[in-house]
């Protein structure tokens, strides 16, 4: 048995059903610091792992509101305060005309909030992560499904957790080195 510090234990499954079932059992067994790695999004897995992060929509809403305010303020300030131009006798504060740039900046800011928010909350870009130390992990982006119980879990014990994962009938259980 290696003396290297480990990040956790990883079990490899052949199909999504086994992974979802295993994730559910791991939660029931009392593990909390665990994550699953799959080649495509599986809704049932998010439920099994009890993942519900509702922050992103709020971030996007914030971005949208900020963009809208910025767009309208830009139109208003330039057209009324900084550089008032008489265009065909139209009022300096031409609200209907300002709607178009305001709409576009709303969408622009909200889209940036969605992308940067998603990356930020996911902690990406991440140049190094221990799970990649497992050679078989490359299959997580192809056709295999992984469940990882992390060493920082209060219930984690290398031998006990190894035995637990083995009972879930995975293809293989592996150490994930830190």
């Amino acid at each position, binding site marked *: 048995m290696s003396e290297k510090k480990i990040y956790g234990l990883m079990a490899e499954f052949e199909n999504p059903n086994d992974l979802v079932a295993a994730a559910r059992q791991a939660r029931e067994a009392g593990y909390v610091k665990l994550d699953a790695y799959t080649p495509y999004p599986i809704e049932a897995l998010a439920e099994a792992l009890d993942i519900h992060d509702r922050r992103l929509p709020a971030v996007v809403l914030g971005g949208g509101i900020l963009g809208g305010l910025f767009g309208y303020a830009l139109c208003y300030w330039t057209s009324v305060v900084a550089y008032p131009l008489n265009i065909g006798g139209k009022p300096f504060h031409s609200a209907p005309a300002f709607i178009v740039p305001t709409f576009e900046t709303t969408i622009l800011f909200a*889209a940036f909030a969605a992308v940067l928010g998603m990356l930020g909350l996911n902690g990406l870009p991440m140049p190094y992560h221990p799970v990649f130390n497992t050679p078989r992990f490359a299959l997580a982006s192809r056709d295999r499904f992984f469940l990882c119980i992390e060493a920082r879990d209060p219930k984690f014990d290398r031998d006990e957790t190894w035995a637990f994962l083995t009972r879930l009938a995975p293809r293989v259980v592996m150490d994930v080195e830190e």
Partner: protein
Amino acid sequence: MTDGTPRDTSRERPAAPSGAILAPGYTFTTLTDKLASIALSRRTPKAWFFGAFVGFSLTMVLLFAVTWLVFRGIGVWGVNQPVGWGFEIVNFVWWIGIGHAGTLISAILLLLRQPWRNSINRFAEAMTIFAVACAGLYPALHTGRPWLDYWLLPYPNTMGMWPNFRSPLIWDVFAVSTYATVSVLFWYVGMIPDLATLRDRAKKLRAKVLYGMLAMGWRGSARHWQRYETASLLLAGLATPLVVSVHTVVSFDFAAGIVPGWHATIFPPYFVAGAIYAGFAMVLTLAIPLRKIYGLEDFITARHLDNMAKILLATGLIVGYGYMMEAFMAFYGGNPYERYVFWNRLGGPYKHMYWALMFCNLLAPQALWFRRVRRSVPALFLMAMIVNVGMWLERYVIVVVSLHRDFLPSSWGMYHGTIFDWATFVGSIGLFLALMFLFIRLLPMISIFEMRQILPEAKAAEEEA
């Protein structure tokens, strides 16, 4: 007609049953390997070299035309009084319209939960970005001093000047630049999981490093997927009103003017429908050769072509309704100038253009009512080409024919594109092809992770869970 089998029976493998969006027999493994190999393989199909050669050669034509333009000024184009907007605005509207189908497929069909979009969304999005890039070229060059184009943007400057936000032209700057930016974001975010697949499948170090950097350390964590899916849905929700707004704003460039033939309230919806129409024609134009060259008939099936043909037919009818309404308003509105513009389209010096347009956009696509046509690959390709030409003619009729005879007969004139107009147009097609071929070679042109979701294995898991 009970016989609904596809016409292209030349393939050796059993064809996907008509109606299927994916040929049977694929697993996560084989699907991933097949789609990833397109970008990772060392062997590039001969047809790729041919296409890329054509694209790059025409790009050289573009560079030549633009160099001459910058050297001599926009007098090298045929634009002058009274037709100050010639090929360049025609091409601008044409290209930007083409882009719309990509966003429609990636955003609107995602919100409508149409899984058949999964095999065509990626390259349709790429098409959007490259089409918008070609479109953006034209107004940028048309300013006459393209090196001062940043004056269009609102930024504090020593001249103390700001753009006029009451002008549809500045709305266009905002709409098109936002559209380009959001399309790139959507496209890139959609590619992250597939870039991770390429990173993990790549054999060569250079490919590993490059795809690795682009994938940003994506590891397919369930927590990440949950936020990723939320972000995709929200982006789709944002892109949907955006795509409608873009061609609406483009139509405001015309509709907000008083030129007879432009000043019509039907313009925004009719432009948006026309954009989707043109865009789907271009998606078909690209999809049909691509599936042949790369043997992707298993993923882009007869069902996909059939669905796209139906959308082409439906939007074509909306566009036809727009033409009818334009004619109706010209007469019902009682404005003699509007009425004259209409007669001038029908029988004036550009009447050939108008009747060719009617044939291409209104008459010819009616063949798509027949299943036999929708299921015939060569017929569909021909239809798509006809619509591509027709939509270009439509913008030509709107821009040039309306401008060349306005209120005062003393200021009438004729417009013809010069060799440099044509060179810029053909050159932009080259740029588009060149970018498209580079994309196909280097990046995953079919969304691998979204295709995994429509595999029977994934479906079974969903039902059980």
